[in-house]
């Protein structure tokens, strides 16, 4: 499906509606076409094109040696990728679902993250680990984990999360080009989100590590990434009814973290809420709130608040709507930012 739809847009040279999944697939295709050292490997990535069809058509176009259905073993897949990268290839690994990446943790933490450091810079590992992640698609257990906190707590890994179709393409290209390992978290509930997008003229992206202001505002900053970006944009729209003019910052990567963009925004607005769906305790929001406090203390009119998933194992599909932070929870936090008025 991906390649055909994208080619239609390309022929006319005009932007056409494309899904995030299609843009990701196109990024893989273009990277493979440009650089023969780029290899894709994982479970069901070949004939099937991945369970989300992101790798559709790659095996056909580049052959099974470049897009490989591996045996079903995540530690083996990532471990093999380490060896491939040691020998000069640029592996892009697909983990089928967030919670199925855990068998590969040993390889990720002990080798992928540390090889550059262990070898005094002599052996960087240009590996991209693509992980469909997060909830909201009605998946049964182990299909909806938000694992970014584990990854960001591991020095040596970049942690990147696109939230738009443009970024899906651009950030994946950047990640594959990076000489450092990247954990590329694909918000699976945004896979089918669409935007007008042309593969012939994809929007240029800045290097990994730059956040963007998705919506300028003056009253407070919502800081978010990945699956929670649409929630925050919707909340910002809704908040105008209350007279709030919210700025929304999309981090796009947790590592590196763009202190500059975040701090500049919070200094302008004086108030901040961090929004993500992974658990709050020990989650990314705590780190972000601490950094903001350290850098913007004198500009803050209220404590930095967090809106996060509950501190529970990801719930079953019939209950997930109670867990995922939605617009109301964000607005509720925004209301609590009127700190002076309350105290």
């Amino acid at each position, binding site marked *: 499906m991906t390649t055909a739809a994208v080619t239609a847009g390309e022929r006319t040279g005009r932007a056409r509606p494309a899904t995030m999944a299609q843009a990701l697939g196109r990024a893989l295709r273009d990277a493979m076409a440009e650089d023969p050292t780029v290899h894709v490997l994982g479970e069901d990535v070949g*004939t099937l094109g991945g369970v989300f069809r992101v790798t559709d058509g790659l095996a056909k176009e580049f052959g099974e040696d470049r897009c490989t259905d591996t*045996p*079903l073993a995540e530690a083996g897949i990532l471990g093999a990728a380490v060896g491939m990268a040691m020998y000069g290839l640029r592996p892009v690994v697909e983990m089928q679902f967030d919670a199925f990446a*855990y*068998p590969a943790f040993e390889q990720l933490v002990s080798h992928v993250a540390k090889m550059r450091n262990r070898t005094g810079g002599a052996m960087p590992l240009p590996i991209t680990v693509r992980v469909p992640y997060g909830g909201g698609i009605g998946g*049964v257990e182990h299909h909806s984990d938000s694992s970014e906190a584990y990854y960001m707590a591991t020095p040596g890994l970049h942690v990147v999360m696109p939230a738009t179709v443009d970024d899906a393409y651009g950030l994946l290209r950047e990640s594959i080009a990076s000489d450092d390992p990247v954990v590329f978290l694909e918000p699976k509930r945004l896979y089918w989100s669409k935007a007008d997008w042309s593969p012939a003229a994809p929007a240029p992206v800045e290097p990994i590590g730059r956040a963007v202001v998705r919506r300028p505002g003056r009253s407070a900053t919502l800081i978010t990434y990945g699956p929670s970006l649409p929630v925050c944009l919707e909340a910002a729209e809704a908040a105008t009814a209350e007279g709030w003019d919210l700025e929304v910052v999309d981090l796009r990567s947790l590592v590196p973290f763009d202190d500059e963009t975040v701090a500049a925004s919070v200094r302008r607005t004086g108030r901040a809420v961090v929004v993500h769906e992974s658990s709050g305790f020990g989650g990314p929001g705590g780190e972000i709130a601490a950094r903001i406090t350290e850098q913007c203390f004198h500009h803050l009119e209220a404590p930095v608040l967090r809106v996060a998933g509950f*501190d*529970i194992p990801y719930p079953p599909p*019939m209950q997930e709507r109670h867990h995922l932070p939605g617009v*109301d929870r964000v607005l509720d936090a925004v209301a609590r930012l009127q700190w002076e008025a309350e105290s």
Partner: protein
Amino acid sequence: MTVQELPGAAAYRPTPPPAWKPLTDPAPLLPDPEPYRVLGTDAAAGTDPELLLRLYAELVRGRRYNAQATALTKQGRLAVYPSSTGQEACEIAAALVLEDRDWLFPSYRDTLAAVARGLDPVEALTLLRGDRHTGYDPREHRIAPLCTPLATQLPHAVGLAHAARLKGDDVVALAMVGDGGTSEGDFHEALNFAAVWRAPVVFLVQNNGFAISVPLAKQTAAPSLAHKAVGYGMPGRLVDGNDAAAVHQVLSEAVARARRGEGPTLVEAVTYRMEAHTNADDATRYRGDSEVEAWRAHDPIRLLERELTGRGLLDEDGIGTVHEAAERMAEALREQMNADPALDPMDLFSHVYEEQTGQLREQAARLRAELDAGNGAHDESGAEEGR
């Protein structure tokens, strides 16, 4: 009792240090090259008619269950269902060879084995329905939670069987895994532990040809999955997974062997997944109809039916009775599944720890307040829009 004191364990210790002795005769560990068959062979004559009839009734019921569950996914009553149609002989035999005190360690596809072991059909679907992660008390039924991460339940089976043996209990664990799952590190580690500890475990690999889209040839280069046993020092057995009598016999022998303290066995049942991986999968992308059709001729229910009718143990009436019973089960299942489960959102916080932490109490209070305020985010409709 320590491991060393267990009967038979001493023989497994290297004695004395330098003398490593190669196994002089690995033959007893090696599987026969052809899958073991009973139905339609001379061996069938010796089989117990009552057992065959019981297997038949369970197979028919199981197939009907698979069909009903798949239908329920279309009505949105189940989040997802991985059908085991075509594999019923493996599912049923796995359940029937065990004593009540034994344990079953199923994978996510093995709902049918759990039901055949006596689990309530609705409780068995709880995970796939999406209201709770496990719908039953594993200790009550001695069925571990249906396991989604592949092969991770296998070391658990080894540990449980080992613990039971340390306690002096006469308990066997039977662990189920797919062909794809045998590639995981956990499979290797479980088999190795089981053999070293001589744990009373039986590993049943349902080789149904595919791991989602990946055929066996891309999964392993071994002559058979049963061959893998030899390297760990346990016997491997290859069996026709569509021959219910054969699967039952091979598993019974393996269970008896484990019970006698002779250690684990790896059984590979060669079968075929007739449906797609789950209702969400499109099997036409990776396999052709002709292959599926070829397997239809080797259907486990037909094989058994032919045997039973040929021996005059079953007639049209008997077949009708079995199908009627299956239909009644399906009807009851449909009815029960059409009722919305009574769910309390506050349950989200109930079983994270024995006692709720301060944070969880705080978060529970916040959710309570949201629900009391009639916050739209908690409506069913809100959830749909959120998708």
